[in-house]
């Protein structure tokens, strides 16, 4: 079966040293054993990627790891343990594996397409040596005369490819079925190549961008429209089809426990819905849409996914003269299941900059320690608490700053903590005075925000097609039995033998059933007690 395994060329002449070596290497690389070892290596090499945080899946985890293990992390990074699946060693294994695969499967494809056009092999001289064998004699003349023609018809009907050998008075029928097994195997292996190519090309052309939208806000599908963006290697901004998305309304359902029987489940979110209006750049055509978890919204060359949500309290800050210095709905990051949320407000349009670190509690409650907490994720008793820091916000040095963080190291706390001034607390609609005569802050209203992810991978559908092909291939290959069956006339009766190529649970039964049909009234005499040969024929033995 493996034509890449010529065995007669063991003796190499010294003149063709280089060529001989190359051939030897090629033969090793395309052997079953190498394929097996590379597969196991690949499995082992994938393990560290689940132990160490990976840049692709968990960049924050990598940063945290560097912080926690400053000495070890750079060493691990050198050997690419934070990028296992794009590392040189992981790539080397799968590239070798696929070279081996191609070198192994192509010759087999050629051999198989040839075998498909040839008649079944000649009937072996000694059928008794086959794993399944029975003989019937004597059978009587009538049965014997009709035997071969009948066997021919019967086997053909059962989907065998059949050849009649010799003449009808003294000959045999040779039959083979299950060519589909090898076809399935080849389709499986070839489809794996398809999967690999589709993954590679698709990944290169793909992109994904993230954007946080508060109710009422919108964004445009271009690079500037995203908070963060990760393009594939072949990505070009021209791939982005112009459209815009506005978040009209965001709805959440929380499980309500009227009966108080399922306390553990109270407040569990049961549905998130983002209602959006999309506008196509080319035609200006507007349409309403909805995004849910598991239900992305399809746009041209893009899918819009819902990946997160939270509260965005509307806050207005006025200076002592009543002038508005800050206004807007600011997204607060949820910190726990009850949506205790953290937000940062940076006030820059004032003589002395200050920043606010604020917690939002949708349904506020007090812990025994006196600290505030949220008891329920829906906004039943909303409350904002604020600590205020004065000093340089670091906005002007040009570096992009995380909008959800405030570096307070070089700032002075003027409200909350040990500042001597109590932190501020605001209920919905309330206005409170800021310390140091800075003015007032108002909690005007409450909105929600949605984190959207816009992704596109043109390779996905091809990956799926090849994956399904390989599933069909492997199923066929593993479940379709391939076997040869022979029926031969003997002096007074006949014999039937069968040989499986690969696993075949019903080999013995095939022989008995064929006999029962060929000679309905006779009992098979010589039953070979030996059970079928080893479960799998060794490919390399062939």
């Amino acid at each position, binding site marked *: 079966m493996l034509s890449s395994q010529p065995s007669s060329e063991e003796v190499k002449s010294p003149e063709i040293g280089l060529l001989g070596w190359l051939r030897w290497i090629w033969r090793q690389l395309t052997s079953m*054993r190498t394929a097996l070892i590379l597969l*196991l290596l690949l499995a082992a090499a994938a393990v560290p990627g689940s132990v160490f945080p990976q840049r692709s899946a968990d960049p924050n985890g990598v940063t945290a790891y560097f912080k926690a293990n400053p000495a070890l992390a750079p060493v691990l990074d050198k050997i690419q343990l934070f990028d296992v699946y794009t590392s040189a060693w992981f790539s080397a294994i799968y590239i070798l594996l696929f070279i081996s695969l191609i070198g192994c499967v192509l010759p087999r494809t050629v051999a198989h397409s040839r075998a498909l056009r040839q008649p079944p092999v000649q009937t072996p001289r000694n059928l008794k040596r086959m794993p399944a064998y029975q003989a019937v004699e004597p059978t009587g003349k009538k049965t014997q005369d009709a035997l071969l023609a009948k066997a021919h018809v019967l086997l053909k009907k059962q989907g065998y490819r059949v050849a009649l050998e010799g003449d009808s008075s003294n000959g045999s029928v040779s039959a083979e079925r299950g060519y589909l097994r090898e076809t399935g195997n080849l389709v499986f292996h070839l489809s794996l190549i398809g999967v690999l190519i589709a993954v590679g090309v698709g990944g290169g052309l793909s992109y994904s961008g993230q954007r946080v939208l508060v109710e009422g806000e919108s964004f445009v599908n271009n690079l500037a429209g995203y908070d963060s963006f990760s393009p594939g290697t072949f990505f070009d901004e021209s791939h982005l089809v112009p459209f815009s998305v506005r978040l009209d309304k965001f709805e959440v359902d929380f499980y309500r426990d009227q009966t108080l029987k399922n306390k553990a489940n109270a407040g569990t979110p049961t549905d998130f819905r983002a209602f959006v209006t999309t506008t196509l750049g080319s035609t200006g055509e507007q349409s309403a849409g909805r995004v849910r978890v598991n239900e992305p919204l399809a746009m041209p060359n893009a899918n819009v996914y819902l990946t997160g949500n939270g509260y965005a309290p509307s806050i207005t800050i006025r200076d002592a003269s009543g002038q508005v210095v800050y206004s807007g709905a600011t997204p607060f990051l949820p910190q726990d299941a009850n949506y205790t949320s953290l937000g940062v407000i940076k006030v820059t349009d004032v003589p002395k900059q200050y920043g606010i670190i604020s917690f939002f509690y949708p349904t506020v409650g007090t812990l025994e320690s006196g600290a505030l907490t949220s008891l329920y994720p829906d906004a039943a008793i909303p409350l904002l608490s604020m600590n205020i820091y004065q000093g340089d916000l670091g906005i002007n040095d040009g570096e992009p700053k995380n909008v959800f963080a405030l570096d307070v190291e070089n700032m002075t706390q003027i409200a909350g903590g040990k500042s001597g001034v109590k932190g501020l607390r605001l209920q919905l609609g309330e206005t409170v005075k800021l310390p140091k005569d800075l003015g007032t802050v108002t909690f005007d209203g409450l909105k929600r925000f949605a984190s959207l992810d816009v992704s596109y991978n043109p390779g996905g559908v091809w990956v799926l097609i090849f994956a399904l092909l390989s599933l069909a291939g492997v199923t066929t290959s593993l479940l379709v039995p391939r076997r040869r069956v022979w029926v031969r006339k003997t002096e007074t009766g006949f014999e039937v033998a069968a040989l499986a190529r690969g696993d075949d649970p019903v080999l013995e039964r095939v022989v008995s059933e064929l006999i029962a049909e060929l000679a309905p009234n006779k009992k098979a005499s010589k039953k070979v007690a030996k059970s079928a040969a080893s479960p799998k024929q060794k490919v390399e033995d062939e």
Partner: protein
Amino acid sequence: MNSITLNADLAAISRLVVEGAMLVYTFAFLAFALHLSQLASTKKSVRAGASRLERVGIALLALAAIIHGVGVVLRGISASRVPWANMYEFSITGSFIVVAIFLIALTIKDIRLLATFVAGFNLLILGTADTIFYVAVKSLMPALQSYWLVIHVLVAVLATAFFNIAAGLSIAYIFKTAKWVKASKLKGVATFRRILALFPKEDKLERLAYRFNIIGFILWTFTLIAGAIWAERAWHRYWGWDTKEVWTFIIWTIYAGYLHANATRGWSGKRSAWLGIVGFVAILFNFTVVNLFFKGLHVYSGLK
């Protein structure tokens, strides 16, 4: 949309029923263990009486399976959805499918001697589920509200059950072919050897394991593909090397190696049996350690 009704009382009943099934599994396990020890006896009269005990064991196992099945169904009804959305439910459903497949296979193939293994394994899984993994019925988080939960997880459970039975057969094969078992003069090992002698022949064990494994592999391939389709819907990419995805891939690759080993000279037999066992250990690892201790998107254990 908020029409899910959870029934905590029914969930409590379901838990009791499952615990009842554990009790019956215990009796079945004892019956099988006793049966094996009788078979291993050197006295002929003791051996002769053993087959009745085995029939009792099978009947107990079937009874346990029925009670177990009722517990699983009640759990599903109490949550108004499929009973496999967290580790507890995955465990009780998965172990039920193991015993169901075993009992069905028993009508086709004589694998009675595996019954001890199946009863013991289910007892262990249910015990762990009941004591460590138990969580009250909860509604599904939005990411799990998808028909892919039904398809992807159900097929994964099925694949696991097939791999599980195959692993049992491979373990028997390994013991049967082990040199120290064959050669040892210790009395305990000799008894063990007599028990092993009752199992099907080595090549038959190998072939049976292979057949369970190929079904498992086809189902696992489907699980992997279905998982990728679901991930594309829920996590905006079909593959991202999330820890769970990594282990699904590792398991798939190990079993691909197993299938190759069966067709490679020098690798069939013991080595391939070991690969089958390693593959199943990886599955158990994926389900326990990866679920509980590794960081990732698949946080559905329901445990904090």
